[in-house]
Structures are given as structure tokens and as C-alpha cells.
């Protein structure tokens, strides 16, 4: 079927003017084809004998379809031109337009978004500013550069977590806070290795007669020890704002909890120093569960006076934290390890934990820090008094 026009795609063979056995010459009309524009005669460009007809009269075929074969008689000069491959590109059809109806996607109700100009967004990222804390004064209430710049002098607020944790936002907030912390707070670091022999023996005995739900974890002892030590060294319990340290009247330790998906949150266990170990265990369990479900009270988030991070039994031996502003210290408990220890001139394997203190050098110095750590170590030697 020859291409007889730029937009011809198919034609109907309406009449054959030859049949098998007929000799044809260059220029002979051998068939009539019906197209959109009317009937057009088909010329042949070879010399030879028609050997077979492949497309019968009345059939509609696409351009390029072989209609008949012509055998060259011996001695015929004209070469047969090779057909181009018909382009394999899909041709538009009306059918493609009639797609089956898709199930309509349920659209979540729109939550009003904060408008932020591209330039402001970039600047906030560069300055580690949490845009959630910035008020917009731009067009349509958008946050613009000037607003972000104004926010650099304001104190950094703790991130608020709403129902259903938005990990991306949280990550952003953590990033902003951590960067700011490192930028503004002069950290100093101290570590102390503590013998947990007494503590672990005591805990074993304590747990021996308890149902699993009533048992306590070593972390609870760490928490209580750190809390009690703060009564002796209140310089690590409070906030630094407006250029001064404001000690907190109570001890609410922020307990760092890792969330599935990579978030991190440190809600407060209120009055940590006044709770019994069992009460602390219950509080901790409850917080972890609620934190992971994204249901925390705002007071739990805004009230920590210091943060403790405990890596548990799968973390590093020493963890040096980053202080969470506006707090002034963070205590890290590494992995409990079994190591050789000198006990009364003997070498024994003992359960040890490395406690680290990262503190704000504007408020305290290494001497006081060391005394604080010493106090924690001391409390952990008398677990029955915790």
C-alpha cells in the first residue's frame, strides 16, 4: 500500500487491474485504492510478472502492507526499491482518549500552609532557623527574608510536636536546635567511668521476685542518680536565657527517646528526684510509649531542666551529647560493658558504664562538672538509697 499523501495512514484496495500471471511494465496502473480524498490509481515501478495477490479487493490495510508480489523476469533491469520500515511510533487514536475511569483519590482536608518565600526558606535553612517559630509579614502573610533575619536574634524555642509525629519537621527542628546549640553554647566535656557492680547486683535482687511488668531497668538507676546529684550541684539544672543562668526550682529530667523513623525527642519526667525507682520506671515506659505514638503533653516538652541520654545495650561506650538550648547540660550514659577493673589491688571483671557530661562553659567549669559526675558515681554505689 503506497503512501499517497503526508497524512495517509491506510487505504482500501477497491480494484485489482491485474491478476497473477500478468506481465507488468514500469508505470502500469495495477490497482485502485480508496482514500479519504477519493480513489487513486496505483502505479508499479518494476518490470515482471504478478506472482500472487496478497490483499483482496475490499480490504483496508495500513500504508506499507505488501499488496502483491511481482517476480522479475530474467534480464529485467529495474531494481526493486526496499521499503522503509513503517515508523513504529504509536499513532494517536481516539481510543486512547477513552481511558477507564480511575478511582477518585480521596483528598485529605487542606491544612492551611505557611507561605514562605523561596529566598526566606533558603536563608532560614542556612541559619538553622525553625520557620515554625517565625512570623510572616510579607505578601499574603508570607515569611520573607526580613522576618527570618529578625528571628535570628530571638531565643530558639523547643519544637512542639503535634498529634501524629511529622518526622521531617522534627528533623528540621532538631537540626535547627543542634546547630544553634553548637554555634552559641561553648561546650566542655568530662567523662567518668563508673563501677556498676553494686548497682547491677542490687537490681538483679530487686527484679528477682517481680513480675516482668514490675521489673526495673538499669537506666532508671542512672536517672535517679543523676537527679539526686543535681540537688548537690544545681548549676547544671536550669536554663540560660537573656545572658544569665536561671536555676530551676525542680528537677525535670528530659529523657531522650529515639523514635522509629529517625526522630529524637526528650520529654521531661517530672520531679525526677522525688520519684521512686518503680515510679520512674512506670513514667519512663509511659513516656516512651506515648512519644512513639506522638501523644505528648506540651508541658512534657517545654519543661526539661536538663537532658539525659542513655544509649542502652546497643550503643557506643561513650556518648557525648549536644546540649539542648536553653538547657545548660546533657548527661550521657554509654553502653554497660564488662571490663577489667582494679578492686582492692585485684583485677576483676566488672560491669562499667562511662558517664559523660557536656556542659555550658558560660555557666560552669570543669572543676564543678567533675564534682557533679563524682556525685552521680557515688549515688550509683548505693543503689538501695536511690
Amino acid at each position, binding site marked *: 500500500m503506497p503512501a499517497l499523501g503526508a497524512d495517509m495512514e491506510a487505504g482500501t484496495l477497491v480494484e485489482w487491474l491485474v491478476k497473477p500471471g500478468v506481465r507488468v511494465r514500469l508505470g502500469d496502473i495495477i490497482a485502485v485504492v480508496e482514500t479519504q480524498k477519493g480513489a487513486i490509481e496505483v502505479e508499479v515501478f518494476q518490470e515482471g510478472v504478478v506472482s500472487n495477490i496478497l490483499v483482496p479487493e475490499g480490504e483496508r490495510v495500513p500504508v506499507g502492507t505488501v499488496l502483491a508480489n511481482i517476480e522479475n523476469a530474467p534480464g529485467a533491469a529495474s531494481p526493486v526499491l526496499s521499503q522503509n520500515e513503517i515508523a513504529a511510533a504509536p499513532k494517536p487514536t481516539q481510543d486512547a482518549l477513552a481511558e477507564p475511569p480511575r478511582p477518585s483519590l480521596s483528598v485529605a482536608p487542606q491544612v492551611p500552609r505557611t507561605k514562605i518565600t523561596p529566598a526566606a526558606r533558603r536563608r532560614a535553612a542556612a541559619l538553622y532557623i525553625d520557620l515554625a517559630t517565625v512570623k510572616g*509579614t510579607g*505578601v499574603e502573610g508570607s515569611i520573607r527574608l526580613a522576618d527570618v533575619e529578625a528571628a535570628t536574634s530571638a531565643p530558639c524555642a523547643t519544637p512542639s510536636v503535634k498529634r501524629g509525629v511529622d518526622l521531617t519537621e522534627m528533623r528540621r527542628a532538631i537540626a535547627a536546635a543542634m546547630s544553634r546549640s553548637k554555634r552559641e553554647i561553648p561546650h566542655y566535656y568530662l567523662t567518668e567511668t563508673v563501677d556498676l557492680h553494686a548497682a547491677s547486683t542490687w537490681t538483679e535482687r530487686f527484679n528477682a521476685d517481680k513480675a516482668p511488668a514490675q521489673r526495673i531497668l538499669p537506666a532508671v538507676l542512672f536517672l535517679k542518680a543523676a537527679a539526686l546529684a543535681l540537688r548537690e550541684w544545681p548549676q547544671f539544672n536550669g536554663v540560660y536565657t537573656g545572658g544569665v543562668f536561671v536555676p530551676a526550682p525542680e528537677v525535670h529530667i528530659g529523657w531522650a527517646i529515639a523514635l522509629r523513623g529517625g526522630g529524637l525527642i526528650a520529654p521531661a519526667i517530672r520531679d525526677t528526684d522525688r520519684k521512686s525507682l518503680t515510679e520512674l520506671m512506670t513514667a519512663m515506659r509511659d513516656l516512651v510509649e506515648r512519644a512513639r505514638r506522638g501523644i505528648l503533653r506540651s508541658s512534657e516538652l517545654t519543661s526539661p531542666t536538663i537532658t539525659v541520654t542513655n544509649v542502652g545495650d546497643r550503643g557506643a561506650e561513650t556518648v557525648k551529647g549536644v546540649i539542648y538550648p536553653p538547657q545548660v547540660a546533657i548527661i550521657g550514659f554509654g553502653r554497660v560493658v564488662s571490663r577489667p577493673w582494679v578492686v582492692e589491688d585485684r583485677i576483676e571483671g566488672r560491669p562499667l558504664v562511662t558517664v559523660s557530661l557536656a556542659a555550658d562553659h558560660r555557666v560552669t567549669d570543669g572543676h564543678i562538672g567533675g564534682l557533679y559526675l563524682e556525685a552521680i558515681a557515688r549515688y550509683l554505689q548505693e543503689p538501695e538509697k536511690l
Partner: protein
Amino acid sequence: MNAPQEAVASLRMTYREACKQALRQALLADSRVFLMGEDIGRYGGCYAVTKGLMEEFGEARVRDTPLSESAFVGAGVGAAMAGTRPIVEIMTVNFSLLALDQILNNAVTIPYMSGGQFAIPLIIRMATGGGRRVAAQHSHSLEGWYAHIPGLRVLTPATIEDARFMLIGALADPNPTLIFEHVMLYNMEGELSSDINAVDIDHAKVLRAGTDVSLITYGGSLFKTFEAAARLSKEGIEAEVVDLRTLRPLDTKTILASVARTRRCVIIDEGWRSGSISAEIGMRIAEQAFFELDAPLRRVCGREVPMPYAPHLEDACLPQPETIVAVARELVRPT
């Protein structure tokens, strides 16, 4: 009227006079240059741009044509193709539609379609724009439309020096060039510094530096934009004014640099808003300077109506300083 021979610090002249001096310089410098257009010879030009040129250069080089836009523009294409340097005047852009086929189907296609065998170094000058109370068929601003066509240069001189020297720059270019002269600019007077004797035709120009908002415009809207910038300055808003000077090719680099500085942009374009050159500029800024923006893009354009006759209606259709001020102000100090 010849310019004085001795050097002077600057010369005061009208935009019209600057256009004429450019044509005169062209005719003197190259014998292949000749002018064609309606009433450019005996009448002296509809806008009096070519007054006296026929007397000076003769009828062969300053040819009055009958009212045959298609033929004399096409003749310009053929004459350029065959070795001369015709400068054709189409009285106004409104009449250029009769010659659109010769411009779009011949002038810009021949270099490409012939595989580079022929250049078409043709210049077509046209008056453009509204403001003269001459109603719908005589008030178009179609330079943005023409700027859509690849292969064409589209120039929009708005200052005395650009009117004086952009044509000369175009003569050195082997491509078909349209030069749009806004009707409201012909009477404008200004100083031409005597140490300027050429201008480039490829770049936009920052004519007023500013920090708070970029006002990007061309042609007849330039002076309204300057007026707006002056008023904004009194309010403590410093606007940067960018004269595009060439609509094709657009000097994207200068536009983006300005927006990166001020972070806010208003485009002022007398053409009808939809699908105008302001749309193209806005899109380029969105594509290439999105993260620099501290406010949405805005534009002040011609109202989308066939230009009405009544003066108060025509004024309402054209960009005005008050509108430019209001739009710019709202970006910088949102209410």
C-alpha cells in the same frame, strides 16, 4: 539639519531627530543602504522622521512606496537577499499585519531553509503603541508578538542614545531586525552625550540602581517607570529600573542579576497581558531565579480590550505611573 562638526559636550535633540540622524548616517556610510516606505520621501514621513532625506539622497535611495506593505516589505527581503541593505519603514505596527507573511514566512525562514546560503540583512522600522487617542486599529503594541519569532531581532529603543545608535548597530548585523519606535517618544527631548557613538544591541541596561524592587520595562513605558521610581523613592522605596532595549534576544542575564539584588520584580509592558513578553520574562525569572525571590512576580500591562478612543478610557488601558507605584509598593510593604 546637520549636527555641528566641532565636538560639544552634549547635544540636545528629540527622539525623532535622533532616529533621523541614524538614518542619515546609514545612508552616508554605505551606498547599498536605501529606504522604502509610505510617505517617507515627499511627505517627509508620517512622524516626520525622514524629513529632508529624499532631498538629500534622491528618490532612488529614499523611495516612496504605494500602499503595498506586503510587496515593499517582501521587496526588502529580496533586496537584502540579493546584496543591498534596505531599511523599510512600515508606518505603524498596525499595518505590519499586511506584511506578516513576508516577515515570518520569508525574512526569517530563508536563512534557515536555504541551509545558510542567504542572509537577510533587512531592517524594518515601525511606530508602535497607544496614547494618541487613535482607537483600536491604530494603537497596538505588537513588539512582544514579534519577539516570539526565532530568527528575528526585536529592538525597542527608548532613550535618545538608543534611538540614535541602535539602528547603526542593527546595520552591522546580518539578521532581519525590527525596530519599534513608540509614538509617544518622538517628541521627547533629551541630551545626547557627544562621546557616545555606538551602543550595543544585545543587552538590557540598568538605568537606575535600586535595592527594593526591580522594575523591568521597555519602550514607551520606560519613562512612566522612571516617574514611578521617583515617587517610590519619596516613600523610601528604592526601585531599580531596567530598560530591556531588546526583546529578542532578551538579556536574561541582566534581568536575573537585578532580581537577585532586589528579590522583587514588577514587569511593565504595554502589550495585552496574556501571552505577552511580560509573561515570557516572568517565566524566565521563575525558571532561573526562583530561589532569589522574596515576593511573588507582578506585572503592569495593557488592559485586554481593543483600545478605546475616549481619552479617559485609553488612559485606563495603558500602564500608568500610579499603577506601577501601587503594585511595587504592595510588594515591598504589604498591607
